[in-house]
């Protein structure tokens, strides 16, 4: 059972629609007790970092997420949900994140290119991970963001994407059960759905 974290930060519906479309059992996690019933957790999210973290704390989700991760259960952070995995964010003001993957979230600086980075862009794979099984190499995915996750250690980067400079577009923790992706798989058509399907098949580490 995949839980979709509802912490008041946007587009749960798209994630739920995509899981429903794939016939993957899912439920909205709207209070801490719901963690008992799930095997996988998706942290979606659109919006600003400080408000998101505050909502996670106010909803008493902080510790359950850390415990869920520590137990080796699969977690997928999407867009802002990915950025929240970092040690801290620098959007608006410096704010502590969930700290599941060492790094910080900073503003993109793509020289003369436009911000936000909106549209379809590709991935270059630095490491193998089951979440990309059967995903077409060179496939483009849908990005929409102005900040990015600057990891502290290169070994936490699964994929990079080039927009002006290269930036980490998929990150993973050392154990391999917590994955964050900057693009929206639920908005990336066939290849994105394949990634979500792979996530549902990830096993407890």
């Amino acid at each position, binding site marked *: 059972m995949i839980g979709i974290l509802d912490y008041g930060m*946007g*587009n749960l*519906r*798209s994630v739920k*629609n*995509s899981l*429903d*479309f794939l016939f993957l059992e899912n439920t909205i996690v709207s209070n801490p007790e719901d963690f008992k019933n799930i095997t996988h957790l998706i942290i979606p999210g*659109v*919006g*600003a970092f400080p408000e998101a973290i505050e909502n996670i704390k106010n909803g008493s989700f902080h510790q359950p997420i850390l415990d869920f991760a520590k137990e080796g259960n699969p977690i997928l952070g999407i867009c802002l949900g990915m950025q929240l995995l970092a040690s801290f964010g620098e959007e608006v003001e410096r704010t502590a994140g969930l700290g599941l993957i060492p790094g910080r979230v900073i503003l993109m600086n793509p020289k003369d*290119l*436009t*911000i*936000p*980075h*909106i*549209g*379809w*862009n*590709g991935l270059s794979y630095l490491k193998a991970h089951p979440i990309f099984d059967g995903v*077409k190499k*060179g*496939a*483009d995915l*849908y*990005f*929409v*963001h*102005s900040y990015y996750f600057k990891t502290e250690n290169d070994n936490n980067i699964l994929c990079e994407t*080039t*927009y002006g400079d290269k930036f980490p577009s998929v990150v993973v923790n050392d154990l391999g059960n917590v994955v964050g992706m900057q693009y*929206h798989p*639920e*908005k*990336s*058509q*066939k*290849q*994105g*759905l394949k990634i979500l399907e792979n996530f549902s098949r990830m096993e407890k580490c």
Partner: protein
Amino acid sequence: MLKKRIIPTLLLRNGRMVKGINFDNFRDTGDPIFASRVYNSQYVDELVFLDIDATNEGRRTNAKIIAEVSKECFMPLTIGGGVSSVEIIRELLNNGADKVVINSAAYTDSDLIRKGANRFGSQCIVLGIDVKKEDGAFILYKNSGRTRCDISLKDHIKNMVECGVGEIFVNNISNDGVMQGYDLDLINKVTDLVNIPVIACGGAGNFQHLVDAYKGTNVSGLAMASIYHFGDNNPIRARAHLMNNQIPIKSV
């Protein structure tokens, strides 16, 4: 590298899809949900829905269509027409929209843009602007092209960028439905003013028009409607033509 986008636009009227010429003489072009399904199967990059009567009829944007389409089309969905309050933005996003287009309300309520960008993020607030070329100058119009606005293109865009819009959707009414190509001067003028992505609409009549606009401007995405409604064309052929002309297009 970031790809250039192909964005079919669906104009909504009374639950149907329509298309006109110069924002007038609308013809029925089918069922918008069925059309969205077809576009989805053709791997378009995004869909834009514009409820063209909502502002003039003083009603809320049709959110139902987004709720339906988002159940089966897994790509970015943008909707506009009658977006006049934060509450409407919230309703549209909750129904599955990723972005909303704000056009008429932006002229009188810059606070709406500011609040929308602060609450939901700049990335989901798209400024819609409709322009007519009159005596060589670009004049802004609101209410689906019915009301002339006094503010200059440059001032309006500067104000709105300051308020936090994340993208601009610009249409040249004079070119709309005429299928004689995009207004490259207008596109260049807008892209020169901002550092956010610009989507241009109005004028695509053949695939070379897309190539001309991508080669002649820094536009991020091109929106189009008539080209698919009134000809033997589809997004797959558009994609092939762009690829053959070395325009970077999404790999599927």
